[in-house]
């Protein structure tokens, strides 16, 4: 204090020369140049990122949107009870139904003045091979349609080559080497389209339907795999959220800081970096081989993904607990709250937005994960049936959305490739929804303070 009043040494004068602030000196200019350079780098980096993002999104939309539409052959069927009864009595039931559809197609072509010398069998290649069965199912479910003289308008899926032609994937040249369809068929398709019998429209079955075999890409849908993912996410949410949050609260707020907790902490961080396929093989060994849970079951998938998600949730929960100012804990303890009260009344609500964000990011990660499912048999399984009931939803063999996408991308037919892109749009839709939910939840919890 006394020092402050001592006279200042005269060193000032010899140091910096006083200069005008209106002109920049060399040092300032150099600093400004460095700053400008840095800003440019930043802008370039962001532009590059945006460029790739736009490219990716446009590729996904361009390739994936066609999967949501499908080419249909709309026929007005006149179904008589005798015909159906005869078909049901025959040995190969579907072939009778197939004949019914073909006959109707020929009739419609004649009505519209489209001529062809193809046999009904060859002509039938225009239609998806699964349609006879579809018709049979529909008829048996709607017996009222068999009244005499009434017609029902039914859309039948066109064969995938026909669909590919409508989408520009299949050309006359490419059909030269194709046994499924001939260029002559395409001429017919053109005429049928003009007559309004062949038409491309939105195909809900792609979103709600089940996967189909290699020969019928036009029938494949992602609905059942979506249910598989849904049941897996239920398992992940209800296991990893409570376990992860409880573990982090204990580690962060209660556990003594010593070697053991340090060791645990390091290991949790390491687990977060373990490749997901390792969790897959762990799940195979523990849940399927040791415990004996069924293969390909969403329950097992969910358990494996829980293992994978836990470190993410624990790390983000601990980070958000750490971010709560210690003065809040002091305040609570200072008025005589117990440790537990201080955590649950004050710290946890403040950490909630962070915890929820971390959880949803973890879930989103799990939703998009394919590799561990590979090892427990959820990839490569053709999910063709809806689970009946909740229990079978958890335990019956199923696939998951990313696994289904992988499966489709692997198949040879380009019609499946298109569906893989379409599946990616749906998957991204889910992820986007989850992120929006995270943002809404965060807003809601933040607004309370």
């Amino acid at each position, binding site marked *: *204090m006394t020092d402050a009043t001592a006279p200042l040494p005269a060193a000032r004068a010899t140091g910096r020369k006083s200069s005008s602030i209106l002109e920049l000196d060399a040092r300032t200019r150099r600093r400004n140049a460095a700053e400008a350079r840095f800003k440019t780098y930043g802008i370039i980096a962001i532009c590059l990122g945006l460029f790739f993002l736009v490219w990716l999104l446009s590729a996904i939309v361009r390739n994936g949107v066609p999967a949501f539409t499908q080419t249909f052959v709309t026929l007005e069927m006149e179904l008589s009870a005798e015909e159906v009864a005869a078909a049901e009595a025959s040995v190969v039931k579907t072939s009778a139904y197939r004949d019914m559809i073909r006959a109707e197609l020929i009739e419609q072509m004649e009505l519209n003045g489209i001529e062809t010398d193809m046999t009904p069998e060859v002509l039938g290649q225009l239609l998806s091979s699964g349609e006879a069965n579809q018709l049979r199912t529909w008829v048996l479910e709607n017996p009222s349609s068999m009244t005499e003289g009434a017609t029902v308008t039914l859309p039948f899926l066109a064969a995938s080559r026909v669909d590919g032609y409508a989408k520009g994937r299949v050309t006359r040249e490419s059909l030269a080497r194709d046994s499924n369809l001939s260029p002559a068929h395409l001429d017919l398709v053109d005429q049928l389209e003009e007559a309004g019998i062949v038409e491309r429209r939105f195909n809900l079955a792609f979103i709600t339907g089940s996967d189909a075999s290699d020969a019928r890409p036009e029938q494949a849908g992602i609905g059942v795999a979506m249910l598989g993912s849904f049941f897996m996410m239920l398992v992940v949410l209800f296991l990893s959220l409570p376990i992860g949050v409880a573990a982090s609260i204990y580690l962060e707020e209660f556990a*003594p*800081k010593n070697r053991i907790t340090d060791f645990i902490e390091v290991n949790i961080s390491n687990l977060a970096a373990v490749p997901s396929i390792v969790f897959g093989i762990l799940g195979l060994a523990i849940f399927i081989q040791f415990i004996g849970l069924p293969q390909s079951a969403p329950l097992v998938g969910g358990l494996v993904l829980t293992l994978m998600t836990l470190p993410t949730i624990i790390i983000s929960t601990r980070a958000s607990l750490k971010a709560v*100012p*210690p*003065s*809040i*804990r*002091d*305040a*609570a*303890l*200072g*008025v*005589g*709250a*117990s*440790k537990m*009260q201080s955590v649950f*009344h*004050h710290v946890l609500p*403040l950490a909630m937005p962070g915890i929820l964000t971390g959880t949803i990011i973890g879930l989103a990660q799990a939703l998009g994960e394919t590799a561990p499912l590979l090892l427990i048999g959820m990839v490569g399984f053709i999910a063709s049936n809806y689970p009946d009931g909740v229990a079978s939803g958890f335990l019956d063999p199923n696939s998951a959305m990313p696994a289904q996408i992988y499966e489709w991308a692997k198949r040879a037919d380009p019609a499946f490739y298109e569906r893989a892109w379409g599946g990616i749009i749906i998957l991204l839709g889910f992820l986007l929804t989850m992120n929006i939910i995270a943002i809404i939840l965060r807003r809601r919890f933040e607004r309370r*303070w």
Partner: protein
Amino acid sequence: MDDLRLTERSVDQTDIKISARNVQVFYGDTHAIKDVDVDIEDKTVTAFIGPSGCGKSTFLRCLNRMNDTIDICRVEGDITIDGEDIYDRRVDPVQLRAKVGMVFQKPNPFPKSIYDNVAYGPKIHGLAKNKAELDEIVERALRRAALWNEAKDRLQTPGTGLSGGQQQRLCIARAVATEPEVLLMDEPCSALDPIATGQVEELIDELKQDYSVVIVTHSMQQAARVSQKTAFFHLGNLVEYGETGKIFTNPEDKRTESYISGRIG
């Protein structure tokens, strides 16, 4: 040895609320409090003064075991309240802190409404049987902390939305709402204007009727105005402890004299 202490205690018990003997505090290897002996009387205001970093807050935090929350902190020696050792194994610090309230150096209201801030302590200790009683406790606490007039129309707005000084008074209200027997205040007026300071000093004066108050302050005037006893800390040592009047007019130690006259610090 033990017997001797017991008799000593029972003699002191009549008017000594807190008694510290031989207290050492370490932060890791740093020796922050050295050999402090002090007797804090009941129904008295005791001021802790001393230069920044001398350990006033540290010692204050020993009295309600807030130092337990700092991992590297180690406390040695005996501190008794009403003759009972607060560092005894059987003592639950939570129960102790309900008895020994604290106002922190930095205002730290909960990020909740003003009402909830004050009502929290009474709620968890079950001091109110119903809503009306709770309302009454909240109002009384806010009045005592000289915040009622400013806060009565915005009880449901967040406590963190108050100004710094108002927040500190809210923290005081929160501390008195639980009716502690001892109130520890760490620089409660450092963020307050002279008027609010005056009101808080009035509150301290009033609390003195029933409680014992320990206040850390950097203002000599404040120490002189509100306290009956003053303790001067320097570099972790308790240099001098006695009647406030005597410390300020006729200190025994040279360091005390220098500090009071503004030469250390």
